[in-house]
C-alpha cells in the first residue's frame, strides 16, 4: 500500500521533494555523490494554457523576484519528444531544489498540474566503485521525481539508450538509506533519454 496513494488525497509535492535535501547533505558528506548545478522540470506543453504558453517570459518573475527569490538561472527548452523542459541552474543545492518545486507548484496553480511529468536532478558519482558494473566515479546520474506517482527513482544513462541498472540499484539503496521516498515498483523507473542539460 503506497503511503502517498492518490485515494488518500493529494500530498504536497514538497513533502516528498524536500527529502532529497537531507539525503544530499548526508550522501555528499559521505563522498558518495555530488550534485551538479543542474535540474529540470519536464512537462507537456499546451498552447491552450496561458501560463504554459507564456512560461519562458515569466520565469524571472517566478524564481528571481520577491519573497523567497533565488538566483537560479532558468530557460525553457523543447525536446524531440514534443515535450518541454524548464532547465534550471544553481550552485546552491537548496535553492535549486526550492526553484524546481516552485516551478512545479506554479504550474499546478495555473491549471497545468496534469502537464507536469517529472522533476530531474543531476548528480555526479564522487565515491569509489566496488565493481566494474557499479555507477563509476565521475559519471552522471539523475534522481527523477515523477509527479504522477510522487516518488523518486534513479536513472543512470549509459551510451546510446542503455542504462546502468546495477548502478541504479546501488543508488536506490543509497537513496533509501538517506530516507528518500523511492519508487518501489521498479517497472515505473522509466528512463528519460536525451535530457537537455
Amino acid at each position, binding site marked *: 500500500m503506497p503511503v502517498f496513494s492518490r485515494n488518500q488525497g493529494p500530498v504536497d509535492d514538497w513533502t516528498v521533494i524536500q527529502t532529497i535535501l537531507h539525503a544530499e547533505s548526508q550522501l555528499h558528506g559521505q563522498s558518495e555523490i555530488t550534485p551538479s548545478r543542474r535540474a529540470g522540470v*519536464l512537462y507537456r506543453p499546451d498552447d491552450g494554457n496561458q501560463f504554459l504558453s507564456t512560461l519562458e517570459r515569466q520565469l524571472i518573475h517566478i524564481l528571481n523576484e520577491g519573497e523567497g527569490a533565488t538566483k537560479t538561472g532558468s530557460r525553457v527548452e523543447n525536446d524531440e*519528444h*514534443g*515535450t518541454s523542459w524548464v532547465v534550471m541552474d544553481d550552485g546552491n543545492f537548496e535553492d535549486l531544489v526550492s526553484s524546481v518545486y516552485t516551478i512545479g507548484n506554479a504550474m499546478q496553480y495555473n491549471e497545468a498540474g496534469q502537464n507536469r*511529468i*517529472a522533476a530531474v536532478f543531476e548528480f555526479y558519482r564522487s565515491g569509489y566503485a566496488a565493481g*566494474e*558494473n557499479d555507477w563509476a566515479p565521475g559519471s552522471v546520474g539523475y534522481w*527523477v521525481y*515523477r509527479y504522477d506517482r510522487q516518488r523518486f527513482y534513479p536513472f543512470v544513462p549509459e551510451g546510446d*539508450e542503455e*542504462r546502468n*541498472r*546495477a548502478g*541504479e*540499484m546501488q543508488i536506490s539503496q543509497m537513496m533509501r538509506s538517506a530516507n528518500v521516498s523511492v519508487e518501489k515498483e*521498479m*517497472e515505473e*523507473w*522509466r*528512463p*528519460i*533519454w536525451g535530457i537537455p542539460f
Partner: protein
Amino acid sequence: MMAIASFFVTVASFLMQMFMWRMMFGGMFGGRRDSQGGAIIGIFLATILVYFIGSILMKSLSRYREYGADHGGSELTGDPGALASALEKISRSMARIPSEDLRTLSTANAFMIIPALRGDSLGKLLSTHPPLEERVARLRALEREMTTGLR
C-alpha cells in the same frame, strides 16, 4: 596475466596513435616516398591487430576472473547456493527496470522488439563481466559438485 595483457594493449594503443599522427601529418599531405613506407604500414597494421586481439583477450580474462571470484567466495563461505540466489535476485530486479521512455507512457510501444534483436554474441565478446545467468549456472553446478563431494 592481466598486467602482461594490459601492457601489450597499452603499448599497442600508444604506437597506434603515434602512427596515426604520422600518417595524418607526414603521409597524407604529400609525404616522403622512401623505402621505409611499406615497413611502416606493416608495423602499423600489426599494431592494430595486437591492439584488438589484446583488448579482447583482456576482457575475456576479466570475465574469467569474475568466475574465479565467485568460485573462491563460494569455497570460503561453503555455500555457492547463497551467492547464486543473491545473484538471481539482483538479476530479477534488474530485469524489472524498463527501457521505455517516460514520455511515451501513454502511447503504444512499438519498439519493444528492439532489445530482443540486439547483437548479443558481439556484446558477449566485448563485455568485461560475464552475464549473471552464466555466473548463476556455474554456481549452481559448483553447489551440486560440493554437495555430492560431501557424501
